[in-house]
Protein backbone atom coordinates (compact mmCIF):
# COMPACT_ATOMS: atom_id res chain seq x y z
CA UNK A 1 0.00 0.00 0.00
CA UNK A 2 1.28 3.47 -0.88
CA UNK A 3 2.53 5.49 2.10
CA UNK A 4 0.67 8.73 2.78
CA UNK A 5 2.92 11.76 2.47
CA UNK A 6 2.86 13.74 5.71
CA UNK A 7 2.42 17.47 5.42
CA UNK A 8 3.16 20.44 7.61
CA UNK A 9 1.50 23.86 7.61
CA UNK A 10 3.49 26.97 8.47
CA UNK A 11 2.25 30.44 9.39
CA UNK A 12 4.83 32.93 8.14
CA UNK A 13 4.69 36.66 8.68
CA UNK A 14 6.90 39.25 7.02
CA UNK A 15 8.47 42.18 8.80
CA UNK A 16 7.64 44.81 7.46
CA UNK A 17 4.33 43.67 5.96
CA UNK A 18 4.40 42.43 2.38
CA UNK A 19 1.70 40.99 0.07
CA UNK A 20 1.42 37.17 0.53
CA UNK A 21 1.86 36.54 -3.21
CA UNK A 22 5.21 38.38 -3.16
CA UNK A 23 6.19 36.55 0.03
CA UNK A 24 5.49 33.21 -1.63
CA UNK A 25 7.53 34.18 -4.69
CA UNK A 26 10.45 35.09 -2.44
CA UNK A 27 10.15 31.84 -0.50
CA UNK A 28 10.07 29.74 -3.68
CA UNK A 29 13.04 31.56 -5.14
CA UNK A 30 15.02 31.25 -1.89
CA UNK A 31 14.23 27.52 -1.68
CA UNK A 32 15.24 27.00 -5.30
CA UNK A 33 18.48 28.92 -4.78
CA UNK A 34 19.40 26.68 -1.84
CA UNK A 35 18.11 23.25 -2.87
CA UNK A 36 17.56 23.44 -6.62
CA UNK A 37 14.60 22.70 -8.86
CA UNK A 38 14.43 19.04 -7.85
CA UNK A 39 14.35 19.99 -4.18
CA UNK A 40 11.63 22.52 -4.83
CA UNK A 41 9.57 19.97 -6.73
CA UNK A 42 9.81 17.43 -3.92
CA UNK A 43 9.00 19.98 -1.19
CA UNK A 44 5.39 20.34 -2.29
CA UNK A 45 5.41 24.01 -1.31
CA UNK A 46 2.02 25.63 -1.75
CA UNK A 47 0.40 28.86 -0.64
CA UNK A 48 -2.76 27.88 1.22
CA UNK A 49 -4.02 31.22 2.51
CA UNK A 50 -2.79 34.80 2.52
CA UNK A 51 -3.77 37.70 4.75
CA UNK A 52 -2.76 40.90 2.99
CA UNK A 53 -3.59 43.18 5.96
CA UNK A 54 -1.40 41.16 8.37
CA UNK A 55 1.41 40.33 5.95
CA UNK A 56 0.79 36.70 6.86
CA UNK A 57 0.69 33.59 4.72
CA UNK A 58 -0.02 29.95 5.42
CA UNK A 59 2.03 27.55 3.36
CA UNK A 60 2.10 23.80 3.13
CA UNK A 61 5.12 21.56 2.62
CA UNK A 62 6.09 17.93 3.12
CA UNK A 63 7.36 16.90 6.56
CA UNK A 64 10.75 15.90 5.10
CA UNK A 65 11.29 19.35 3.64
CA UNK A 66 10.31 21.27 6.81
CA UNK A 67 13.88 22.16 7.93
CA UNK A 68 14.69 23.27 4.39
CA UNK A 69 11.61 25.49 4.25
CA UNK A 70 12.56 27.01 7.62
CA UNK A 71 16.07 27.70 6.36
CA UNK A 72 14.81 29.09 3.06
CA UNK A 73 12.45 31.47 4.86
CA UNK A 74 15.22 32.54 7.27
CA UNK A 75 17.50 33.23 4.28
CA UNK A 76 15.27 35.98 2.89
CA UNK A 77 16.71 39.44 3.54
CA UNK A 78 15.11 41.61 0.92
CA UNK A 79 11.74 41.90 -0.78
CA UNK A 80 10.55 44.63 -3.17
CA UNK A 81 13.79 46.49 -2.52
CA UNK A 82 13.14 46.69 1.24
CA UNK A 83 15.05 44.97 3.99
CA UNK A 84 12.72 42.18 5.15
CA UNK A 85 12.70 39.29 7.58
CA UNK A 86 10.32 36.35 7.50
CA UNK A 87 9.19 35.03 10.88
CA UNK A 88 7.72 31.56 11.25
CA UNK A 89 4.96 32.00 13.82
CA UNK A 90 3.86 28.39 14.08
CA UNK A 91 4.19 24.97 12.48
CA UNK A 92 1.46 22.39 12.63
CA UNK A 93 0.09 19.22 11.07
CA UNK A 94 -3.39 20.64 10.39
CA UNK A 95 -4.66 24.08 9.40
CA UNK A 96 -7.09 24.00 12.33
CA UNK A 97 -4.38 23.61 14.97
CA UNK A 98 -2.17 26.08 13.13
CA UNK A 99 -4.91 28.70 13.32
CA UNK A 100 -5.36 27.95 17.02
CA UNK A 101 -1.63 28.38 17.67
CA UNK A 102 -1.44 31.54 15.57
CA UNK A 103 -4.44 33.15 17.26
CA UNK A 104 -3.04 32.33 20.70
CA UNK A 105 0.09 34.30 19.70
CA UNK A 106 -2.14 37.30 19.00
Amino acid at each position, binding site marked *: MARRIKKRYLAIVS*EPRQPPSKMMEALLSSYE*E*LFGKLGLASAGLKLIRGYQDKGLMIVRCTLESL*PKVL*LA*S*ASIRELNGNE*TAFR*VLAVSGTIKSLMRKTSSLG
Partner: protein
Amino acid sequence: MRRYVDFWVKGEDYESSLELLRSLKRLGFSDAVMELGGDLLERVEELRRVGEEIGIKVHRKLVIAPESRKDLLRALRSNRGKFEVITVLCKNLEVALVAARDSRVDSLVIPPKPRFRFDKGVAATIKNCVELPFSQYLSDKQAFLETSLQLVEILGRRTELIVSSAASTPLELRGPKELASLPWVLGYPQEKALNSVSKAPRRIIERNLLKLSKRYVVRGVVMLGEEDQEEISGDSL
Protein backbone atom coordinates in the same frame (compact mmCIF):
# COMPACT_ATOMS: atom_id res chain seq x y z
CA MET B 1 9.86 23.69 27.91
CA ARG B 2 13.03 24.70 26.12
CA ARG B 3 14.61 28.04 26.88
CA TYR B 4 16.37 29.54 23.93
CA VAL B 5 19.58 31.56 23.90
CA ASP B 6 20.86 33.88 21.20
CA PHE B 7 24.57 33.42 21.79
CA TRP B 8 25.72 36.50 19.86
CA VAL B 9 23.88 39.78 19.49
CA LYS B 10 25.75 42.99 18.69
CA GLY B 11 24.67 45.91 20.80
CA GLU B 12 26.03 49.08 19.28
CA ASP B 13 24.25 51.68 21.40
CA TYR B 14 21.75 51.70 24.24
CA GLU B 15 18.58 52.41 22.23
CA SER B 16 19.30 49.85 19.51
CA SER B 17 20.19 47.27 22.19
CA LEU B 18 16.80 47.74 23.82
CA GLU B 19 15.15 47.32 20.43
CA LEU B 20 17.11 44.08 19.94
CA LEU B 21 16.08 42.78 23.36
CA ARG B 22 12.39 43.47 22.65
CA SER B 23 12.66 41.68 19.31
CA LEU B 24 14.43 38.72 20.93
CA LYS B 25 11.63 38.38 23.46
CA ARG B 26 9.03 38.48 20.69
CA LEU B 27 10.92 35.76 18.82
CA GLY B 28 10.87 33.47 21.86
CA PHE B 29 14.35 33.81 23.37
CA SER B 30 14.94 34.00 27.10
CA ASP B 31 18.66 34.84 27.13
CA ALA B 32 20.85 37.11 25.03
CA VAL B 33 24.63 37.10 24.97
CA MET B 34 25.58 40.59 23.86
CA GLU B 35 28.77 41.94 22.41
CA LEU B 36 28.64 45.47 23.75
CA GLY B 37 30.17 48.30 21.78
CA GLY B 38 30.79 51.96 22.58
CA ASP B 39 29.89 53.05 26.10
CA LEU B 40 27.48 50.14 26.59
CA LEU B 41 29.92 48.20 28.76
CA GLU B 42 29.54 50.90 31.40
CA ARG B 43 25.74 50.74 31.14
CA VAL B 44 25.54 46.95 31.24
CA GLU B 45 23.82 46.83 34.65
CA GLU B 46 21.13 49.23 33.40
CA LEU B 47 20.71 47.09 30.28
CA ARG B 48 20.45 43.97 32.43
CA ARG B 49 17.77 45.53 34.60
CA VAL B 50 15.68 46.62 31.61
CA GLY B 51 16.28 43.21 30.04
CA GLU B 52 14.88 41.50 33.14
CA GLU B 53 11.78 43.71 32.87
CA ILE B 54 11.35 42.73 29.23
CA GLY B 55 11.96 39.07 30.09
CA ILE B 56 15.45 38.57 28.68
CA LYS B 57 18.57 37.80 30.66
CA VAL B 58 21.54 39.72 29.32
CA HIS B 59 25.07 38.32 29.41
CA ARG B 60 28.28 39.99 28.26
CA LYS B 61 30.30 38.58 25.41
CA LEU B 62 33.78 39.38 24.22
CA VAL B 63 34.68 38.56 20.64
CA ILE B 64 38.38 38.57 19.89
CA ALA B 65 40.14 38.12 16.58
CA PRO B 66 43.81 37.62 17.50
CA GLU B 67 46.55 37.42 14.90
CA SER B 68 48.71 34.98 16.83
CA ARG B 69 48.78 32.58 19.78
CA LYS B 70 50.52 35.21 21.89
CA ASP B 71 47.81 37.83 21.21
CA LEU B 72 45.12 35.31 22.07
CA LEU B 73 46.69 34.29 25.37
CA ARG B 74 47.23 37.93 26.34
CA ALA B 75 43.60 38.82 25.57
CA LEU B 76 42.34 35.81 27.52
CA ARG B 77 44.52 36.62 30.52
CA SER B 78 43.25 40.18 30.79
CA ASN B 79 39.57 39.60 29.99
CA ARG B 80 38.46 36.21 31.27
CA GLY B 81 37.14 37.49 34.58
CA LYS B 82 35.19 40.35 33.00
CA PHE B 83 32.91 38.56 30.55
CA GLU B 84 30.49 35.66 30.80
CA VAL B 85 31.36 34.43 27.32
CA ILE B 86 34.51 34.68 25.22
CA THR B 87 34.47 33.83 21.53
CA VAL B 88 37.51 33.65 19.29
CA LEU B 89 37.39 34.40 15.57
CA CYS B 90 40.04 32.09 14.17
CA LYS B 91 42.02 33.85 11.48
CA ASN B 92 44.70 31.21 11.18
CA LEU B 93 45.50 27.65 12.19
CA GLU B 94 47.81 28.71 15.02
CA VAL B 95 44.98 30.61 16.73
CA ALA B 96 42.42 27.88 15.95
CA LEU B 97 44.56 25.18 17.56
CA VAL B 98 44.98 27.16 20.79
CA ALA B 99 41.36 28.38 20.89
CA ALA B 100 40.10 24.84 20.34
CA ARG B 101 41.66 23.54 23.54
CA ASP B 102 42.02 26.51 25.91
CA SER B 103 39.43 26.19 28.67
CA ARG B 104 39.10 29.98 28.95
CA VAL B 105 37.60 30.08 25.46
CA ASP B 106 33.90 29.28 25.20
CA SER B 107 33.37 29.10 21.48
CA LEU B 108 35.32 29.50 18.28
CA VAL B 109 34.18 30.85 14.96
CA ILE B 110 35.81 29.52 11.82
CA PRO B 111 35.27 32.07 9.02
CA PRO B 112 33.76 30.96 5.69
CA LYS B 113 36.48 29.73 3.33
CA PRO B 114 39.30 29.94 5.87
CA ARG B 115 42.82 30.06 4.49
CA PHE B 116 43.79 27.08 6.61
CA ARG B 117 42.73 23.48 6.84
CA PHE B 118 40.98 22.35 9.95
CA ASP B 119 41.31 18.62 9.91
CA LYS B 120 42.25 15.84 12.28
CA GLY B 121 44.77 18.09 14.03
CA VAL B 122 42.07 20.47 15.24
CA ALA B 123 39.58 17.64 15.73
CA ALA B 124 41.97 15.76 18.01
CA THR B 125 42.43 18.68 20.38
CA ILE B 126 39.05 20.40 20.30
CA LYS B 127 37.30 20.85 23.63
CA ASN B 128 35.34 24.04 23.00
CA CYS B 129 32.15 24.61 21.07
CA VAL B 130 32.09 25.73 17.47
CA GLU B 131 29.81 28.66 16.78
CA LEU B 132 28.01 29.30 13.49
CA PRO B 133 26.92 32.96 13.21
CA PHE B 134 23.82 33.25 11.03
CA SER B 135 24.79 36.71 9.76
CA GLN B 136 27.84 35.14 8.09
CA TYR B 137 25.47 32.72 6.36
CA LEU B 138 23.29 35.60 5.17
CA SER B 139 26.23 37.50 3.70
CA ASP B 140 27.78 34.58 1.75
CA LYS B 141 25.60 31.48 1.72
CA GLN B 142 27.67 29.23 -0.49
CA ALA B 143 30.99 29.78 1.25
CA PHE B 144 29.37 29.51 4.67
CA LEU B 145 27.55 26.26 3.86
CA GLU B 146 30.69 24.78 2.34
CA THR B 147 32.70 25.49 5.50
CA SER B 148 29.86 24.48 7.82
CA LEU B 149 29.44 21.11 6.08
CA GLN B 150 33.14 20.42 6.62
CA LEU B 151 32.89 21.57 10.23
CA VAL B 152 29.96 19.28 10.94
CA GLU B 153 31.71 16.39 9.23
CA ILE B 154 35.09 16.81 10.90
CA LEU B 155 34.31 18.39 14.26
CA GLY B 156 30.58 17.77 14.66
CA ARG B 157 30.95 14.41 16.35
CA ARG B 158 33.60 15.58 18.80
CA THR B 159 32.14 18.85 19.96
CA GLU B 160 28.89 20.75 20.24
CA LEU B 161 27.66 23.25 17.72
CA ILE B 162 26.09 26.58 18.63
CA VAL B 163 24.10 28.70 16.20
CA SER B 164 23.77 32.40 16.93
CA SER B 165 22.35 35.30 14.94
CA ALA B 166 25.31 37.73 15.29
CA ALA B 167 22.78 40.41 14.47
CA SER B 168 23.07 44.12 15.08
CA THR B 169 19.56 45.09 13.91
CA PRO B 170 16.14 43.53 14.65
CA LEU B 171 15.67 42.54 11.00
CA GLU B 172 18.87 40.48 11.11
CA LEU B 173 17.58 38.49 14.07
CA ARG B 174 16.06 35.08 13.44
CA GLY B 175 13.83 32.90 15.61
CA PRO B 176 15.28 29.92 17.50
CA LYS B 177 13.73 27.32 15.22
CA GLU B 178 14.94 29.17 12.15
CA LEU B 179 18.47 29.23 13.58
CA ALA B 180 18.20 25.54 14.46
CA SER B 181 17.15 24.75 10.90
CA LEU B 182 20.75 25.37 9.83
CA PRO B 183 22.35 22.39 11.67
CA TRP B 184 19.17 20.42 10.96
CA VAL B 185 19.69 20.86 7.21
CA LEU B 186 23.40 20.12 7.63
CA GLY B 187 22.54 16.67 8.94
CA TYR B 188 21.92 16.99 12.67
CA PRO B 189 18.83 15.28 14.11
CA GLN B 190 16.07 17.71 15.14
CA GLU B 191 16.68 17.43 18.91
CA LYS B 192 20.41 17.97 18.58
CA ALA B 193 19.80 20.91 16.24
CA LEU B 194 17.49 22.53 18.80
CA ASN B 195 20.12 21.94 21.50
CA SER B 196 22.45 24.19 19.50
CA VAL B 197 20.24 27.18 20.39
CA SER B 198 19.19 26.06 23.85
CA LYS B 199 21.04 23.49 25.95
CA ALA B 200 24.57 23.92 24.57
CA PRO B 201 24.79 27.72 25.02
CA ARG B 202 22.89 27.56 28.33
CA ARG B 203 25.42 25.07 29.72
CA ILE B 204 28.28 27.45 28.89
CA ILE B 205 26.51 30.43 30.47
CA GLU B 206 25.66 28.54 33.66
CA ARG B 207 29.21 27.25 33.98
CA ASN B 208 30.68 30.72 33.51
CA LEU B 209 28.21 32.45 35.83
CA LEU B 210 29.26 30.01 38.51
CA LYS B 211 32.93 30.65 37.78
CA LEU B 212 32.40 34.41 38.02
CA SER B 213 30.47 34.15 41.28
CA LYS B 214 32.22 34.67 44.61
CA ARG B 215 31.45 31.17 45.82
CA TYR B 216 33.53 29.50 43.10
CA VAL B 217 36.87 28.28 44.47
CA VAL B 218 38.39 25.99 41.88
CA ARG B 219 37.01 23.51 39.37
CA GLY B 220 34.75 21.15 41.30
CA VAL B 221 34.80 23.17 44.54
CA VAL B 222 32.06 25.67 45.41
CA MET B 223 31.47 27.45 48.70
CA LEU B 224 27.95 27.00 50.01
CA GLY B 225 26.79 30.10 51.85
CA GLU B 226 23.61 31.50 53.30
CA GLU B 227 22.75 33.39 50.13
CA ASP B 228 23.13 30.43 47.82
CA GLN B 229 21.03 27.57 48.99
CA GLU B 230 19.86 26.55 45.54
CA GLU B 231 21.01 23.28 44.14
CA ILE B 232 24.10 23.44 41.93
CA SER B 233 23.89 21.17 38.94
CA GLY B 234 26.69 18.69 38.42
CA ASP B 235 27.16 19.95 34.85
CA SER B 236 28.13 23.42 36.05
CA LEU B 237 30.96 22.03 38.14
